[in-house]
C-alpha cells in the first residue's frame, strides 16, 4: 500500500500546485489521475494554446505551465499513480483514509484533496451496438501498455493527435495496423499527419479514410471488425484489438458516490479552507463550488494554498506559521 500525507485526486494544474504548497509545510503528496499524463484540461484539451491570465506571466503556453508546475513541485518528491481512477474512499477509525483505484491500487492518506476539475476524463465511445461485449476482450480506449499490441493485428480509429501518435508508434510494433478515420482531414500536428500518410504509402500501415467501424465480431473475444466507407461499401478485416481513440471528455464519475455535498456536478465547500462536509476531505480547483466561484487556474492556486494550511493543522494538530519563500527558501525533502 502507498502511504502519504495528502492524496490528491487529479493532477491538473491545481493538484500540481498543491504539491508545492503542501511541501512548504512539510507534507508529502501522492497524486492519482485517470489520464496517462499530468496536466488535466491543459494537457488534454489545449496543450498548445496560450494562457494570458496567470499572474506574472503575460503569456504562457498551457503545456509550458504544466511543465513549470512539475518543475516547481520537484523538490517535494511527489509520487504519482497515472492511468487509474479513484473509485472508492474508506474512512478509517483514526480519521485517515484508504483510497482504492479501479485497478485496485490502494493508497493510505491522512488527508484527501480532490482536485478533480470537471471530473474524470473518460473516453468518448463510438455508437456500436455490441461495443460493451468486447470491452476488455479487444476493444480499448487508451493505450497504457504498447507492448500488449506486439505482433497483434490492430485497428485504430480516430482523427486526432492520439490516434495519429499511436498509429506512428504501433506501426513497428503491431503485426498489422489499420487506421480508420471518417474524414479526410486530421485534427493533429501537420508533421504527424505527413508521417502517417508516408507510413501508408510505404505499405507499413493501411489507411482507411472516409470510413467508420460499424461492426464488431468474434466469439468471446474480438476477431474482426466491419469497416464501412461513406459511399456505403463495407468489408470485414480480422483483428485482435480495436483501439477507439476519439478523445476524452470529463465526467464527474465516482466522486458522486463519496457522500459529499454535490450540486451541479461540483462539490460544495467551506470557503474558509475549502473543506467539504466530510472531515479530512478538501476540494480545490474547478471541482468545487461556492458563492462567487470562478473556474480559473489562479483561483485554484489560491484555494490550494489555503487548503494546505488547514490540512497541516488537521494533521499536526496546530496551526502552521506562514513562512515566506523569500526568507526561508524552498527546503526539499
Amino acid at each position, binding site marked *: 500500500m502507498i502511504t502519504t500525507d495528502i492524496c490528491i485526486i487529479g493532477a491538473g494544474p491545481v493538484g500540481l500546485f498543491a504539491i508545492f504548497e503542501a511541501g512548504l509545510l512539510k507534507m508529502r503528496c501522492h497524486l492519482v489521475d485517470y489520464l496517462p499524463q499530468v496536466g488535466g484540461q491543459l494537457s488534454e*484539451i489545449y496543450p498548445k*494554446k496560450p494562457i494570458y491570465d496567470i499572474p506574472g506571466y503575460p503569456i504562457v503556453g498551457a503545456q509550458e505551465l504544466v511543465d513549470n508546475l512539475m518543475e516547481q513541485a520537484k523538490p517535494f518528491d511527489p509520487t504519482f499513480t497515472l492511468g487509474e481512477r479513484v473509485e472508492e474512499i474508506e474512512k478509517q477509525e483514526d480519521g485517515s483514509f484508504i483510497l482504492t483505484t479501479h485497478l485496485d491500487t490502494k493508497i493510505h492518506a491522512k488527508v484527501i484533496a480532490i482536485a478533480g476539475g470537471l471530473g474524470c476524463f473518460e473516453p468518448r465511445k*463510438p455508437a456500436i451496438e455490441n461495443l460493451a461485449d468486447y470491452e476488455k476482450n479487444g476493444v480499448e480506449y487508451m493505450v497504457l501498455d504498447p507492448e500488449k499490441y506486439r505482433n497483434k493485428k490492430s485497428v485504430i480509429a480516430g482523427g486526432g493527435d492520439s490516434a495519429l501518435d499511436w498509429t506512428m508508434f504501433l506501426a513497428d510494433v503491431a503485426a498489422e495496423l489499420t487506421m480508420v478515420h471518417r*474524414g479526410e*482531414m486530421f485534427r493533429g500536428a501537420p508533421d504527424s499527419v505527413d508521417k502517417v500518410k508516408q507510413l501508408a504509402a510505404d505499405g507499413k500501415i493501411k489507411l482507411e479514410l472516409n470510413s467508420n467501424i460499424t461492426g464488431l465480431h468474434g466469439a468471446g473475444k474480438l476477431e474482426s471488425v466491419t469497416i464501412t466507407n461513406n459511399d456505403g461499401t463495407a468489408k470485414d478485416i480480422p483483428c485482435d484489438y480495436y483501439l477507439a481513440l476519439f478523445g476524452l*471528455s470529463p465526467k464527474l464519475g465516482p466522486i458522486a458516490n463519496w457522500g459529499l455535498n454535490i450540486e451541479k456536478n461540483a462539490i460544495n465547500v467551506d470557503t474558509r479552507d475549502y473543506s467539504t462536509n466530510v472531515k479530512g476531505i478538501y476540494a480545490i480547483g474547478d471541482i468545487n463550488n461556492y458563492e462567487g466561484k470562478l473556474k480559473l487556474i489562479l483561483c485554484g492556486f489560491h484555494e490550494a494554498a489555503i487548503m494546505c494550511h488547514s490540512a497541516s493543522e488537521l494533521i499536526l494538530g496546530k496551526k502552521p506559521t506562514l513562512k515566506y519563500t523569500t526568507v526561508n527558501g524552498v527546503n526539499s525533502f
Partner: protein
Amino acid sequence: MDSITVYIQQDDFSFQPLEIPLGIQMSMMEVLKGEGYETIEGICGGMALCGTCRVEVLNKDEINLEGANDNEICMLETLPCYTGNCRLSCQLQVTEKLDGMKIRIPADTL
C-alpha cells in the same frame, strides 16, 4: 431585422421557437447554455476544441448557413457520434444567417 428565430426540436418532434436578438455578439453555444440546455456543456469555452457543444442542424440545405471551416470539421470528425448534419454550436455566431435554423440538441452529454 432586429432578431432571428431558431427552432429547437422537442422530444415529441415538434419545434419550439427561440427568438434571439441580433447584435448580441454571442455564439449559439452561449445562447443555448443560457437557455438552460444542460447537454450543451461548452467545456472549451468556444474554441472548437472539445465538441461538447455539438448540435444537429436539421435543415442546413434550406437556410443560408455557412459551411463549417476546416478547424470545425476536424473536431467534428473526431467525435464518435458524428453525422453529416452535426455542427459545433460555438462556431455558429448569432447572425441573420441562422434565421429559421432547425436544430436537435443531443439528449446526452458527450
